[in-house]
């Protein structure tokens, strides 16, 4: 008997607590994310309304990509979305890094103020951002024309949100304005975590100022830049709210600001007289899912594994 009792503690007890602690998250995530995702994927292969549903295979996708009735709008939205992402990448992230570099300079005063001021738009509701910018840029009440006139630049003012060549760029820049705080904060945190020894060693070797930034700091924050890029990518290909608030669901002028998100909205939920088409809508959602999944996987498997990590 004593032997049995002694051998018992040696067997590993079942670690119930792991399951117990994981259950709530797994349950909620399954109900809210995984089941809807699977049902969307399934719905995208169907056709017909609720009563006459039939399996359609990849038919919706073939229509979406090739039938001009859908494909014109789809490729237009995809093209606009890529442009939107491009502007965000080349404007938002360099500015974010620059701001972070300035913030981390030891001689800067009022650092907390700048940090907060630049980050605040990020936590504002997109409804407020869209509305405020629409008002700022309004040719009728906006301060933009007034300010430009004050500097004798009035002739350069345009109804930017209403003109086809400018509208998407304007919206991209508004999005940059709103979200520039995120790369700034992430890079700022990464810069702060660089140990002083490394920087002192660099200074001993005569590398200071901007050279130090380019040669020492930037390589050390590369993994953070990777994260920022992927966040921008996911955020931009999911973007919908800003366009919807500023330009409406028909994403004017002439569909020049139509993103995949607004195209999905019109397709799935309909608009004015357009009735929603849940099956085609799910197909658009699936395409967006695949694009984002593809982008994230490319990053995870091709980029992140090659990034060198420095352990201090």
């Amino acid at each position: 008997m004593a032997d049995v009792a002694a051998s018992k503690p040696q067997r590993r007890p079942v670690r119930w607590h792991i399951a117990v602690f994981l259950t709530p998250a797994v349950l909620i995530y399954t109900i809210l994310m995984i089941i809807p995702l699977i049902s969307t994927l399934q719905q995208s292969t169907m056709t017909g309304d609720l009563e006459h549903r039939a399996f359609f295979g990849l038919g919706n996708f073939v229509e979406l990509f090739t039938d001009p009735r859908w494909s014109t709008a789809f490729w237009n939205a995809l093209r606009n979305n890529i442009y939107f992402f491009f502007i965000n990448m080349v404007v938002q992230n360099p500015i974010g890094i620059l701001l972070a570099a300035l913030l981390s300079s030891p001689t800067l005063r009022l650092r907390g103020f700048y940090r907060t001021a630049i980050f605040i738009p990020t936590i504002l509701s997109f409804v407020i951002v869209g509305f405020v910018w629409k008002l700022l840029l309004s040719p009728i009440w906006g301060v933009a024309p007034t300010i430009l006139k004050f500097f004798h630049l009035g002739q350069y003012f345009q109804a930017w949100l209403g003109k086809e060549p400018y509208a998407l760029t304007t919206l991209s820049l508004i999005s940059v304005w709103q979200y520039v705080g995120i790369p700034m904060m992430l890079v700022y945190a990464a810069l702060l975590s660089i140990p002083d020894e490394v920087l002192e060693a660099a200074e001993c070797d005569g590398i200071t100022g901007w050279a130090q930034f380019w040669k020492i700091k930037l390589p050390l924050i590369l993994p953070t830049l990777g994260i920022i890029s992927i966040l921008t990518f996911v955020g931009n290909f999911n973007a919908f709210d800003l366009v919807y608030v500023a330009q409406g669901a028909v994403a004017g002028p002439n569909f020049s600001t139509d993103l995949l998100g607004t195209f999905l909205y019109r397709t799935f939920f309909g608009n004015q007289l357009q009735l929603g088409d849940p099956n085609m809508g799910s197909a658009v959602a699936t395409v967006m899912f695949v694009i984002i999944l593809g982008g994230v996987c490319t990053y995870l498997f091709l980029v992140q594994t090659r990034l060198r990590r420095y352990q201090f």
Partner: protein
Amino acid sequence: MSNSLLASVLLATTVLGSAGFAYADTTLTIESWRSDDLPIWQDKILPVFMKEHPDIKVVFSPTDSTQYNAALNTKLQGGSAGDIVTCRPFDASLALFKAKQLADITSLPGMENFSDTAKVAWSTDDGKQTFCVPMASVIHGFIYNKDAFAKVGITAPPATWDEFYADLDKIKADGTYIPLDIGTHDQWEAATMGYQNIGPNYWKGEDGRKALIAGKQKLTDADWVAPFTQLAKWKPYLADGFEAQTDSDSTTLFQTGKAAIYPAGSWAITSFEQNADLKMAAFPPPVEKAGDQCYISDHVDIAMGLNAASKNQDAAKTFLTWVASDEFQGLYANSLPGFFPMSSHTIAVNDPIAQQFVAWRQTCKGTIRSTYQILSRGTPNLENDTWTEAANVINGTDTPEAAAKKLQDGLDSWYKPGAM
């Protein structure tokens, strides 16, 4: 799963909610997108009905306009929708009827008060079954600032296009007022208050609209391109930066007396009347030659139907019969100036501007918006495309002919006349 949960929660609230009104035998709930009208329903309309029918209590429960269709569909499928459903015109409601979510009320007492034209938006394509009681229509035209006209010396509102542009030139030369108050940012105003407003005079109202559906006319025909040609002439008279001017901007400009002529839908009357100092009047869309037969867009807009799954069918029918009565139609029209009754009763409209609009019914022939029946059923959606193209034409980025061709090409890609 979530639907039945939602249903039981809603059921619980109905039970609890009605407990306080033990004297009312039945409670009817109205689904609507007109959140703005909540006080009018609660204070003016429903008390009248409930006084006549003390055994029925009615609750007006609106949803935000842009989410209404999606929310209503979800509620109907989940079985949690109200007993009375406010009906959007045409296909949105027709789809609900076909899914057996709206009841057939063709033989409801009171329906005889409505002409076929009034019922067209809520009847099957063959016109045999009707599923909603028409409540109100909206009329298009132009509202003008009387002070502006007086200042530049215009004595009578323009009746023909030549007079219209001559007046605009005078206002422009004077420089005090924005001559024509419309923007293209929201796009729908270009299509609705532009194209659909001035178009019926060219395509001869119902004749043209029906010929288009029958395939006898095309959007590229002269009568359908002409309204675009007029819109293309508007640009010089618009405010600077009109491309980014929203409809609420336009409304505010006119309301504050900065603009002379506002291409209008009659629903705008209420918001303009908030400025008591503004002296305004209305004129119908101009015609080519003085004395031409005029046509106006008298568009069916809103109706009420019966949720087929409602447990209070009898009470709901009693209510709908009342909606079809002259009492309701008069109450509604006078509570909401700019929404006009569609029944054949003679209903006195008290608001002076609304009176002007409704008086055009005597001389002009009415029609509904050309894109609404049948033609916006497919992809690409003709209504959405008309928004975009009408805005493009005013912006000058598309010629009238190119815009018309795009619309017709889009329509041809899915619509086969006669097959629907």
